[in-house]
């Protein structure tokens, strides 16, 4: 609800400004946010949806992401911007301004896109250490996620590098479902690249309907030192999930628990590959605005 309200205000402002073309030029400013969850972890206070169904709580110490290759174009293909710059940002620091582009034609640009990518040597690091940037480059990670998970006195640690670079195209402004961005003459148009961190933990791909956030299958592969190794997640088969004792993992209703990728292709039907596929859908625009999310193979 917070997402909706915050972007309604921005949407009303844009709609009130009117016209599709007006001549002149203006600026576009982009911020990057992992929303409240990046800072509070899960459960997000006050949100009945943003919580794990199996009682786990997760806190992020680092949620690093590479973002760049911003594209702005018109509906007929005229290109206003094809930037090749990129940044590395820690989402736990809160919403951060990441790009500013001046001299864009004042009009509605119907096509907006960006990439979630592996940082490059020339990527701007914002609140991210040189060592972390180097680790992402060397590991070819577009996300580096560190944190803790707790339940009933048990604390587990995780530090994962995810490699599933994503192209996000044709983003829609969540405020009014309009395509792309509006640049005003002499104006400063502010938009947000939003990442939905909850998507990583849903038990079903392809739909928001009936999905639940879960962590038990992830926690089950923790080693004796309390660390959940990324590679260990590959040992969980989606159709044969096991608990920490090696027994079939069951849901709240006692039924066998499965993660359902629906028709989304996975390199292998295991939990590690599932999480990679889930991460592909994190890229949004202005809160709830959708983009065409596609893995860059």
């Amino acid at each position, binding site marked *: 609800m917070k997402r909706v309200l915050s972007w309604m205000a921005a949407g009303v402002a844009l709609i009130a400004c009117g016209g599709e073309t007006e001549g002149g030029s203006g600026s576009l400013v982009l911020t990057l946010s992992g929303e409240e969850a990046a800072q509070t972890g899960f459960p997000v206070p006050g949100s009945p949806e943003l919580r794990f169904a199996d009682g786990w709580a997760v806190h992020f110490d680092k949620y690093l992401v590479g973002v760049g290759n911003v594209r702005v174009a018109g509906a007929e293909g005229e290109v206003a911007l094809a930037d090749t710059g990129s940044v590395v940002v820690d989402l736990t620091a809160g919403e951060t301004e990441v790009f500013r582009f001046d001299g864009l034609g004042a009009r509605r640009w119907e096509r907006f896109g960006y990439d979630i990518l592996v940082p490059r040597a020339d990527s701007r690091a914002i609140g991210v250490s040189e060592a972390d940037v180097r680790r992402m480059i060397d590991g070819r990670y577009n996300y580096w996620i560190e944190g803790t998970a707790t339940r009933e006195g048990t604390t587990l640690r995780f530090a994962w590098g995810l490699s599933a670079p994503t192209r996000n195209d044709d983003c829609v402004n969540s405020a009014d479902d309009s395509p792309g961005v509006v640049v005003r003459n002499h104006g400063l148009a502010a938009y947000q690249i939003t990442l939905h961190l909850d998507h990583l933990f849903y038990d079903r791909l392809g739909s928001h309907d009936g999905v639940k956030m879960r962590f038990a299958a992830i926690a089950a592969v923790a080693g004796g030192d309390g660390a959940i190794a990324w590679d260990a997640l590959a040992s969980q088969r989606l159709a044969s999930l096991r608990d920490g004792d090696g027994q079939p993992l069951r849901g709240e209703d006692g039924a066998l628990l499965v993660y359902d990728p629906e*028709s989304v292709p996975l390199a292998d039907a295991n939990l590690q590959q599932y999480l990679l596929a889930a991460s592909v859908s994190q890229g949004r625009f202005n809160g709830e605005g959708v983009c065409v999310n596609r893995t860059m193979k």
Partner: protein
Amino acid sequence: MRALGWCLVLVLAACGASGTGEESVPFTLAFEADAAGREFETVSGWHVRLDEIYVAVGPLALFSNAAPSASLWDRVRGWVVPVAWAHSGFDEYDGGAVRGELLETVVLDLGRDGLQAETHLIGVAGPVRSATLELVATPSPLLHGAHAWVRGTATRAGETVAFAGGLQLPADAKSRRVTGIPAEVELAEGSTVVVAVHPQRWFAEADFSSLPEGGTDGVRPIAPGSQVHAAWFLGARGYGAFTIR
């Protein structure tokens, strides 16, 4: 009878201008079974032989937009040529324009070779890049009230399990739907679009040793709630269970 069907389609096509400048064309939609789906190995080493394989497929739509799993070329083309918004992940995938549509339910015998359930339809000429279909529970006795039905044996390390059972899908539409099946087909007058079904994908992750004993004649039932049923639930709707040519 087949000729009569084609005549009817041609007459309808001749009358059926879409009003959008697109060309209506008669075409044939057909299904076929992947013969490799009758005998195969699972991930956990079971050698499976299916003696009875039936599935009911309901509404099927052929779309102009590429599936989220599209190739790099499709993604680049999508950026150059304006397309309807489509997105993967947690939202309804939007296939764009419907090029062709099968509205009825067909029951397929996947133990048979060759094309089956051939249906003459009218579509809109142009590229088909993806398809979506539903699995349906029909009154057909072949399906025993389920969405799909199999009977067969699984063998591993000297142990043989005879099994039979039906796939029972939940009531929600999402759980019955197979979305974004990749396609690279040009729909034109007289073309035939073939949907292939691959039953080996259904049981790729099944562990037949988990099936409880107690069926008649030593045949173990694939009961809802069992690991084999769960694997079937994922596999029957998963990527690669259907392909299009």
